[in-house]
C-alpha cells in the first residue's frame, strides 16, 4: 500500500529534476530546507530522524539535492522527506513537506478495531512492517 503523506503524495514519485524545482521554489520563498528519514511512517509519527542539520544558508537546490542523494545512498529502504521551514514571524513552521524516497516494498497498515465500553468502537493502525526492529523494517540493508 502506497503511503500518502505530505504534498504531492498522490502524484507519481517526483523525479530528481522535479524535486530540484520544488526545492528551488521553497528557497525562492525564503524557506530553509531540511531532510528527514524514518522507517516508521505511521501517520501519527511526526518525529522523523534528521539527516544532518536544517540547511539555513543555501541559495540553490543543488546543495539540498546533494544531501537527498547522500541520504538515499545511506538509507535506501527508508522513507525520506524534504521539509521547507518558514521562519517568518507568525508562521515559524513547516510550509512544505514532501516524500522523496520510499522503500521498494510497502506492505502498508492494518486497521485494528477494538471493542470499548458500551459497544464503543476504537480504531488504530498497525504497520505490517513495524514488528521487525528499527532499521530492518523495509529491507535487509540497515
Amino acid at each position, binding site marked *: 500500500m502506497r503511503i500518502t503523506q505530505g504534498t504531492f503524495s498522490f502524484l507519481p514519485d517526483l523525479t530528481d529534476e522535479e524535486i530540484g524545482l520544488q526545492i528551488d521554489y521553497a528557497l525562492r520563498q525564503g524557506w530553509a530546507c531540511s531532510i528527514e528519514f524514518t522507517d516508521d511512517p505511521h501517520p501519527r509519527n511526526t518525529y522523523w530522524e534528521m539527516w544532518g542539520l536544517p540547511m539555513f544558508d543555501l541559495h540553490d537546490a543543488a*546543495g539540498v539535492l546533494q544531501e537527498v542523494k547522500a541520504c538515499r545512498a545511506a538509507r535506501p529502504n527508508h522513507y525520506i522527506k524534504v521539509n521547507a521551514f518558514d521562519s517568518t514571524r507568525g508562521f515559524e513552521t513547516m510550509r512544505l513537506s514532501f516524500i522523496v524516497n520510499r522503500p521498494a516494498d510497502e506492505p502498508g497498515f492494518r486497521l485494528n478495531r477494538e471493542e470499548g465500553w458500551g459497544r464503543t468502537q476504537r480504531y488504530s493502525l498497525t504497520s505490517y512492517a513495524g514488528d521487525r526492529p528499527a532499521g530492518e523494517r523495509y529491507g535487509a540493508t540497515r
Partner: protein
Amino acid sequence: MTVDATLDRLSATQTDAPEAPGEPSRVDLAALYRDSGIGDVLAELDRDLVGLVPVKTRIREIAAHLLVERARESLGLASGAPTLHMCFSGNPGTGKTTVALRMAEVLHRLGYIRRNHLVSVTRDDLVGQYIGHTAPKTRDVLKRAMGGVLFIDEAYYLYRPENERDYGQEAIEILLQTMENQRDDLVVILAGYESRMETFFQSNPGFRSRIAHHITFPDYNEAELLEIAERMLATMHYRFDADSRLAFSDYLARRIRLPNFANARSVRNALDRARLRQANRLFETALQGRAPTDTAALTLLTAADIRASRVFDERAPELDFPRAGHDTPPPDRIQNT
C-alpha cells in the same frame, strides 16, 4: 581589443544579414549578445575599474567564448560544458576580489551559473581543526556556494607542505572532486599572490589542470593609482584641489618604492589617514574661533593634510615600525586581502 572589435562588427552586420526563418544552420550571435545583457556588464567593468587592461581583455575573451559556446550548442554542435574554474593571481590590492564579484555577474548573465552569488572563503572556512572535521566543513561550504561562484582567497594556505598531517590536503581533495564532478553547479575562483600560487600549483598539479583560466593582475602605475584615489574620494564625498592632487601624486611616487606597498589598498589607507588629519585641522581652526566651517572646507583635503604623511619625512625612510601618533601609517598587511 580584437574581441571587442569582433563583437562590434557583429552588431553592425546583424542588420544586413537578417536571420532566415526555419534555417537551422545559422545563429544570430549579435542577438545572443544583446539578449544576455553582457554588453552592459562589460561596459560597467570598463567604466568602474581603472587600468587592469589584460584582465579586462581576458574577461571579454571568456565572455565571447561562452557566447560562441552557447551558439554552437543551439546548433547542436556538441562541445561539452566548458571548464570555468579560474585563478586570479596578483599582488595585494590589485582588485582580485572586486573582479571576482563581477565575474559572478558575467557568468550569471551568460547563464553558466544559476545564481548571481559569490561565496568568499579562506582556509579557515574550509579546513577543520581535528580529524573528521574538515570533510563536512568543506562540503558545507561547497553546498552553500552551489549554483554560484566559490571564491577562495589566498588559496595557497590550503596546502601546508611543512606539516604532512595538515588537514588542508583533505579539503583540496574534496574541492578537486567537486570541481570535476559538478562543473555545471559550481565555478571555483582561486586567488592569491602570484609567486605563492605558483608553488601551490606545483605541489598540486591536479589543480592547475582543472583550472582553465589563469588571469594575472598587473600592478597599477602612478597615474592609475591617482585616478583610483580620486574615485575613492568621490564616493566618500571628498575632493582634492590642484595642490593636494600634486601632493598626492608626490606621495604615490614615494610610497610605491617603499616596502609593503599594496596598490589600491595602500591608496585607501593613505586617504583614510589624510581624512583624519583633515578632521584634526578643521577642529583646531574651529577652536581658534574662526568662521563656521562650510561644505567646501569639509570636503577638501588640502596639500598639508597629505604632506604631513610620514612618507615625506626624510629622517625616517624606513616604514617598517609604526610610531605612535595618528599620522603613522600602519604597514599595509600583506597577509590579508
